[in-house]
């Protein structure tokens, strides 16, 4: 193999595949990155056997071939050279990296030893989405999930394809976020796929760098999913299991509603949270005259803090305590100037919504006090 690439492109390509490189695995070759150059296309591949990322970079192919070498070594070398153009060439069993003022020879392994990236059947159902919409949707719901070994079925993001479009849902059983993408090139329906959190994070990282207007193709197979952009392919296993019937959790209607300025509210939550104790609880109470929402938290060892934000309320006064982190996450995913709190009883889930963003719903459980 012999190629010449711009350093910038190579650095970017390496950063795309970086997080798919295996760590601490039984198979040392998973720590490698695989270069392949064929017919003018140069691709980098990394896999940890959970996900696999392949990224095409532009460059000049002088000789076809494949080569694999340890990712960290190559990355460190490339990152620190100053030259604009880098030539990579296979010399015997080594990879020669050369620029105008830098030469390195990296030990390689037989590319035949590198894991084969699973193929995806062309007949499998495929949908195309606008990258910007998917970025928006995924980044909104992903905050609501966490890694857990105890309940694998919720340690990922649910992609539910249905007649009207695609719905993304994530939960960690204390809060839940749902984003409905309507009619955005989705065909067919009735398919659920739970994408592992790590893969979802990677997808997000990759599509964030896509130019506006570009498309993402999602191909589903029974055990795996492929996300494909113009230059990058990410294959991940799917989580095996059934996502909880989350509709039961989202309250159908709410008794009390309060409209609050979002930024101000978020600031008040942060200011009060400094005094939250071990349960991270901040209490929200509607003031006597129904004109303010009072946030308070106290801890015997730290002290106590209160803040007040003006609200418009429909319905009765209410009071409930929340884990402030979960609450703040719910405020951060919206972009509009106002949010609406929908409340039923102090021990029932609370809906945080934005009247201008009806496609997004965030539900958080109060803490029992």
């Amino acid at each position: 193999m012999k190629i010449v690439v711009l350093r910038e492109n190579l650095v970017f390509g390496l950063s795309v595949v970086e997080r798919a490189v295996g760590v601490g695995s039984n198979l040392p070759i998973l720590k490698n990155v695989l270069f392949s150059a064929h017919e003018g296309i140069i691709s980098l591949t990394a896999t940890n056997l959970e996900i696999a990322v392949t990224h095409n970079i532009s460059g000049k192919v002088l000789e076809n071939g494949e080569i694999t070498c340890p990712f960290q070594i190559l990355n460190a070398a490339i990152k620190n050279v100053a030259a604009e153009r880098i030539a990579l060439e296979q010399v015997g069993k080594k990879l020669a990296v050369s620029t105008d003022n830098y030469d390195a020879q990296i030990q390689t392994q037989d590319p035949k030893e590198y894991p084969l990236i699973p193929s995806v059947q062309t007949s499998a159902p495929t949908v195309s989405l606008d990258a910007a919409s998917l970025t928006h949707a995924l980044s909104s719901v992903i905050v609501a999930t966490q890694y857990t070994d105890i309940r694998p079925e919720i340690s990922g993001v649910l992609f539910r394809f249905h007649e009207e479009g695609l719905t993304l849902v994530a939960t960690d059983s204390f809060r839940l976020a749902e984003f409905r993408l309507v009619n955005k090139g989705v065909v067919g329906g009735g398919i659920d796929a739970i994408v592992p959190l790590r893969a979802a994070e990677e997808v997000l990282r990759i599509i964030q760098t896509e130019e506006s207007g570009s498309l993402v193709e999602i191909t589903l197979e029974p055990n795996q999913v492929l996300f494909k952009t113009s230059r990058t392919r990410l294959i991940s296993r799917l989580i095996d299991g059934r996502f909880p019937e989350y509709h039961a959790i989202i309250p159908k209607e709410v008794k009390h509603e309060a409209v609050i300025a979002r930024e101000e509210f978020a600031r008040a939550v942060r200011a009060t949270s400094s005094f939250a104790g071990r349960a991270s609880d901040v209490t929200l109470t509607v003031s006597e005259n129904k004109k303010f929402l009072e946030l308070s938290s106290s801890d015997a060892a730290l002290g106590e803090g209160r803040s007040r934000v003006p609200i418009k309320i429909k319905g009765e006064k209410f009071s409930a305590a929340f884990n402030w982190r979960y609450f703040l996450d719910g405020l951060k995913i919206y972009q509009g100037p106002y949010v609406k709190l929908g409340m039923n009883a102090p021990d029932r889930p609370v809906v945080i919504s934005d009247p201008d963003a009806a496609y997004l719903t965030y539900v958080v459980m109060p803490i029992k006090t």
Partner: protein
Amino acid sequence: MNPKELWKATLGEIELQISKPNFITWLKNSELIERNEREGVALVGLPNNFAKEWVRNRYHKLILGSLRNLDNSIRNVDYVVITGAREVPARVAVSKPIAASPLTDEHKLPISELKVDPITNLNPRYTLDTFIVGSSNELAYAATQAVIASVGKKYNPLFLYGGVGLGKTHLLQATGNAIASHAGARNRVFYVSSEKFINDVVWAVRNKRMEDIKKRYRDVDVLIIDDIQFIGGKTTTELEFFYTFNALHEHSKQIIISSDRPPAAIPTLEERLRSRFEGGMIVDIGYPDYEMRLAILRAKTQELGALLDGKILDHIAAKVQKNIRELEGVLNKVLFLSQHRGGSLDIKKIDEVISETTRVSSKNVNASDIVKTVAEFFEVPVSDLTNRCRKQEVVEPRQIAMFLLRDVLKLSYPHIGEKLGKRDHTTAIHAYEKINKALSQNPALNQKIILIKERVYK
């Protein structure tokens, strides 16, 4: 042969032909799902698509060959990805809507059972949250914090020492627990008392299984050994420990050791081990001061959910000074009494409990034993202690002797004065109070007293 046995035998054969990492990565969680006798097709289940892709392309011939060696009715092999769903009893279980129930339980998370963890050997009951930090142990606490933050890099080995019942084991185990549960890092922690270590070595020597010991103790990231002073004088154990220590230290694995005295004061410890201990960080845990004792009592009563008069706690904290375990013992007893007797307890009753709990067993020790031991310890003639000599080098030994006579034997001050050179009882009182005060401030003196007491009781 049933499919399970057949597959086991096949894997046994394949294992010899491919490298171990490859075997583990690709075939470890595989199984033979079915064997279709009529068509001669074996269906092999693999954990994920990567394995399926790899095995189908690279190991197909190998697997087919091995299977045919054992069962030549098989003509072909097919591969599928095993989905966990096969094990879950289909979809019946989901019929009930999950409602909001999993969401409401944040406050009811069951407390994990407090059993000793079989892998780390740590008791989860000991946590840093329940460790009360005061002036006497803040250095030790800070050192363990530094160790938790950078395991193996700072303060290696960490050597904690302090008297009986001052919280060494608590701090040690809590540190271990903190490291083991540290998010992100996967540190293998192993806690062992030196007695267990000795027993293991003895067992290994007898059964010629030294390899087991080496494996168990060297294949860890953090080794915690409690009460190391007991390995002094046990040559093989010391040697084994020495090797283990070196092996771990070379690979910058963290070692945490506790003892009831500093390395220099463990008389039977080999020189090379001593110097290694001294190469790390040595911190002592001293006697708790009054405020800290009170804080411990308060925390303990709160933990037990009991109510006790503040005055009683004050009193206990003031009276029980040298040992946290005794402090807790007295508290437990007082709580028990107050619950079963009902009504309030008077200070007198509490004094009784305290003296019952903390009484030192003075087995067959008499005054001349103590004086003799002190004299030997300081290498001065006994007569110098018992005459009216006022040489400077005998002043401290004599005061220590007075202190011990009072502390251990509870002799009267006039009697003590009489015994040690016909002195006035005020001299004895002064000596006792001076030493008693110096104890909390001067660890070296404290150490001396402990060593002397040990010799007295031997």
